[in-house]
């Protein structure tokens, strides 16, 4: 089950905790992986850890030209892109009334628009192959909202609507488009929270703990697999029961 031998996966935001875990998990099932991100050092460390079949593909997702080139570079490096994981995300939190246009736009550009452009870029190859997996990493806050994250929640909710629309269009071609919506996961992003903030968050999580990045990786393996071929337009919530939606 869940064998990805012969598949090639492009993972954005692979320098972060969740992205690296997704890349590791896909690689462990036999996929070649293209590791994209802005910080080259962690990408190279991960590629060295994984070994042959891991390719470092740095890309600044706020640069439209670089985004356009990324699927081509990934195809050159790996032969194809069968699995695209749009995982990269940034935050520019601010109270709504104080949020600048720049804060809004930066988050929408990277978290939503880049995902659209990359999906568009890999579709031609997937259509010809009559097989493809697009996995968009959203967030529980895309469904629930979160104070201070109007931009982030908008982008993440936007990914869900985009995924469903695209899922309709390409389902007959063997291409699935799904979302993974993590809750609170132990990463550099949540390390920054104070103990008080963490206690408040944990009180809302029935599982009584934060999630681990490898639990998101496992969800990605499932959605990327042959076995998940009948799952499309879905959002897989991985949040310890924090929001049962």
């Amino acid at each position, binding site marked *: 089950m869940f064998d990805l031998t012969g598949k090639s996966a492009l993972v954005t935001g692979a320098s972060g905790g969740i992205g690296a875990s997704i890349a590791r998990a896909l690689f462990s099932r036999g996929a070649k992986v293209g590791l994209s991100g802005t910080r080259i050092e962690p990408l190279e460390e991960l590629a060295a850890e994984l070994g042959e079949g891991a390719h470092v593909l740095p890309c600044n997702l706020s640069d439209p030209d670089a985004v356009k080139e990324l699927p081509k570079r990934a195809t050159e490096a790996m032969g194809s892109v069968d699995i695209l994981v749009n995982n990269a995300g940034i935050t520019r939190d601010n109270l709504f009334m104080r949020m600048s246009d720049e804060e809004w736009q930066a988050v929408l550009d990277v978290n939503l628009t880049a995902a659209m452009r990359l999906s568009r870029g890999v579709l031609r190859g997937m*259509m010809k192959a009559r097989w493809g997996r697009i996995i968009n990493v959203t967030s529980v806050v895309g469904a629930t909202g979160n104070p201070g994250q109007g931009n982030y929640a908008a982008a993440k909710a936007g990914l869900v609507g985009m995924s469903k629309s695209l899922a309709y269009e390409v389902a007959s071609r063997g291409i699935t488009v799904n979302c993974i919506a993590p809750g609170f996961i132990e990463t550099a992003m949540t390390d920054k929270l104070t103990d008080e903030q963490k206690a408040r968050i944990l009180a809302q999580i029935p599982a009584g703990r934060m999630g681990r990045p490898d639990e998101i990786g496992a969800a990605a393996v499932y959605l990327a697999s042959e076995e998940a071929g009948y799952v499309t337009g879905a959002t897989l919530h991985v949040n310890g029961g924090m929001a049962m939606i």
Partner: protein
Amino acid sequence: MSDIADRVRKIVVEHLGVEEDKVVDSASFIDDLGADSLDTVELVMAFEEEFGIEIPDDAAETIQTFGDAVKFITEATS
């Protein structure tokens, strides 16, 4: 011209799974040959590859029938 028409017809027959004699100049991909809108996008992609040309989106929209496709490709490759 006939060579181009034959190559286009072959792509259409293969892609849409229709009888060769149905693929006449006036045959509309969508209305007569059973294509959906995504099929027309794929046909255009296949034409681009077969003939080594680029068909911009606004031009692709004007290609509704087999005859349209042959005419466009003939002009684009001449």
